[in-house]
């Protein structure tokens, strides 16, 4: 019990956020908005880690460090993704995910 806020509340918020991110990932057409949805997903996981760390296992900082590294990875991921998006934009002059389907079946 963290001063009135039970762990499950954090987890529920994080889970909702996670699936909102998933929803965004699944429906957004613009690649950048999809990227944003991804950030939501990663962010929600971070909340999980932090909440666990603080409320259940405060003796070490595993969750926190995990979060730090996830953020770093997210940054790297975002940079690569954006680079590729820009490349796509140069080729196709749009970044609609539904148009990126030259390869199929």
């Amino acid at each position, binding site marked *: 019990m963290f*001063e*009135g*806020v039970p*762990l*499950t*509340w*954090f*987890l529920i*918020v994080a889970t*909702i*956020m996670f*699936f*909102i*991110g*998933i*929803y*965004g990932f699944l*429906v*957004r*057409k*613009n690649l*950048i*908005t999809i*990227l*944003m*949805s991804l*950030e*939501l997903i990663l*962010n929600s996981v971070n*909340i999980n880690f*932090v*909440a666990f*760390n*603080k*409320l*259940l*296992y*405060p*003796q*070490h*900082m*595993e969750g*926190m*460090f995990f979060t730090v590294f996830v*953020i770093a*990875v*997210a*940054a*790297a991921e*975002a*940079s*690569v993704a*954006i680079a*590729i*998006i*820009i*490349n796509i*934009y*140069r080729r196709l002059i749009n970044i*609609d995910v539904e148009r990126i389907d030259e390869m199929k079946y």
Partner: protein
Amino acid sequence: MTTNQFMFFLFATIIVVFSVLTVTSRRILRAATFLLFVLVSTAGLYFMLKFNFLAAIQLTLYAGGIVVLIIFSILLTSQIAEKLEQPALTKKIFAGLAAVIGASLCIYTILLYNFIPSNLPSIGTNVDTIGQALISTGKYGYALPFEVISILLLSAMIGSIIVAKKRKD
């Protein structure tokens, strides 16, 4: 309602509402802004949990770095005034279904689990201990991941440059 609870509900509400707006807004720059709000409130949660260092990173790296990166790329690739197209209804329904089912499954399962809150004292989360841990090579030390992430960032950078740079011709 304690302060903590109030703060939590505030941040939680912001997070959920703006998350939804992020994935539904039809103006892309607004979406990015909503994302920023989400990230900032997340940082707020971290603050609340006394992870100040983490919250700072969240604000600088995430809110500051990534969102800016995203906004730049938006500016580079999109018409600001342009409204995004609505996704197809079936897509929304299917995605929504997946998300709702997934969320309910996860939440239900989480609620089933009996978490035992810890009464152990929290290890200090001041910058000192964090710095110690980051260069420590023992258990609960993070020197190795720190090095690895540097390789990751380096190669991601090189890769991004390679992919994004214009042709020389």
